[in-house]
Structures are given as structure tokens and as C-alpha cells.
């Protein structure tokens, strides 16, 4: 009985693991594009967290038809539709910034960019002609 109860939360547990994997990629990897991919993984797994509770076994998609009486909950679908499109807009903006950073610093690795910034700040602090 306990096993079945935890099995029914399996989808939530895996969703949390996916979210945390995305979070790990964002904070642990130094490559800007890898970070953005991790952010995308994080966002996509959150969609699952919203949609899974709305499902009803034996129900159908929320499109009204005379032969069905049980429908899955339409409200999370609406919220996630918005979230998906906003997510891709965010990804595109992030990629545009990454492209500009690449053109300015000639690298998209976080530690190289920080090192370049430090040397530039040191040079500015040390000498003025």
C-alpha cells in the first residue's frame, strides 16, 4: 500500500529530478550556451509539474464533445501555453546576449570572460598614459 502510494508520486519525483538537473547545469557549467540549455531544461520540466496534476485517468483532452463526460483540467494547459512561448523568447534573448559577448570577448566560457574583465580593470587601474 505504501509502495503504491509512493509509486503514484513517481511523476512528481522525476519532475523534481529533472528540474534539479537543469539547475545543476546552470550553476555548474561555465559555457554560456550550456547554461542556456540547462535553463531550457529547467523550464521544460516545470511544465510537467503543472500538467501532471491535471490529468484524470479515463478522461480525455479538454475539447468538449457529446460522447465524453470526463475531461482533464484545462487550466494548467493555458498557463503552460503561455510559459512555453515566453520560455523560447527568453532563450532567444539569452542567445543574442551570448552572441554579443562572443563578439566582444572572443570567448563564451565564463571564467575566461571574468579573467579578461579583471585584466582590463587592472590595466585601467594601474596605468594611465
Amino acid at each position: 500500500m505504501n509502495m503504491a502510494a509512493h509509486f503514484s508520486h513517481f511523476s512528481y519525483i522525476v519532475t523534481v529530478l529533472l528540474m534539479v538537473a537543469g539547475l545543476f547545469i546552470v550553476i555548474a557549467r561555465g559555457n554560456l550556451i550550456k547554461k542556456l540549455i540547462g535553463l531550457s531544461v529547467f523550464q521544460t520540466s516545470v511544465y510537467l509539474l503543472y500538467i501532471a496534476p491535471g490529468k484524470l485517468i479515463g478522461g480525455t483532452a479538454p475539447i468538449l464533445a457529446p460522447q465524453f463526460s470526463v475531461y482533464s483540467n484545462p487550466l494548467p494547459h493555458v498557463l503552460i501555453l503561455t510559459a512555453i512561448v515566453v520560455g523560447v523568447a527568453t532563450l532567444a534573448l539569452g542567445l543574442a546576449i551570448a552572441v554579443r559577448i562572443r563578439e566582444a570577448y572572443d570567448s563564451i566560457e565564463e571564467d575566461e570572460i571574468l579573467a579578461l574583465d579583471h585584466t582590463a580593470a587592472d590595466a585601467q587601474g594601474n596605468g594611465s598614459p
Partner: protein
Amino acid sequence: MRHDLVLRVVGKLLVPFILLFALYVQFHGDFGPGGGFQAGVIFAAGMVFYALIFGLENARRVMPDRLVETMLAAGVLLYAGVGVAGLLLGGNYLDYFVLDRNPVLGQHRGIFWVEVGVAVTVCGVMLKIFYMFASRGGADGPGPQ
């Protein structure tokens, strides 16, 4: 990819159907899965597919930069305009019941125009983003103004 015969032929066959499917998803969004977002994205994906196979200049000839930038703004304007129309006809902002003598038909009309606005903006944004990324390589042609 212009010189790959299989890609060209299959592309020429597929692109009209993709665009048609986008329109189908748009207009049947009331009765089946679909709606503005999906239609806009599928239309943009069809155009991206065309641009990948036949080249960015050809795609720019079909959908010029000016048109895409206008689409970007026109969709939001259309959506907000439906709201203002609700105001002018005596109801609240974005009230669809007043858009027609029969309130349910008013809802239909409002939902239709609002979804068109959403599709136009989403398609414009996706296409514009693709154009900007694809033409940034620098080698081919002047950048967008």
C-alpha cells in the same frame, strides 16, 4: 543546400502543406487542438525550413524584413484594438459580449480576432529572430537596417 536535388524537391513539395497546416491549425483552434500560438510557430517553422533549403535571400524575397517587422507590431495592436473596440461599443476593455448583437456570436468574433493577432505576432517574432541570427554571419549581404 541549394544544390541538393532531393532536398529541393521535397522542400518544394512540403512547404505549401506546412503553411496550409498552419492556417488550418489557426482557424480550427476552436474545434480541435490549436490556436494562435501553434499556428504562428508552425508558419514560422515552414518559412525557416524554406530559408534553410533555398537560402536566406530567397526567403527574404518571399517575406521581406519590412513585412516581418510590421507583423511583429500589428499582432499586438490588433489584440489591443479588439479590447478598445469593446470599450467603444459600450462594454469593458476586452469584453467580447458587446461585439455583436448576439453575445455568443460576439464571443466567437472576439476570440477569432484575438487569435489572429496572437498568431501574427508570434510568427513575426520567430521569423525575425531567425533572420537576425542567420544574417549575422556577416559574409552574405548587408545586415538588416
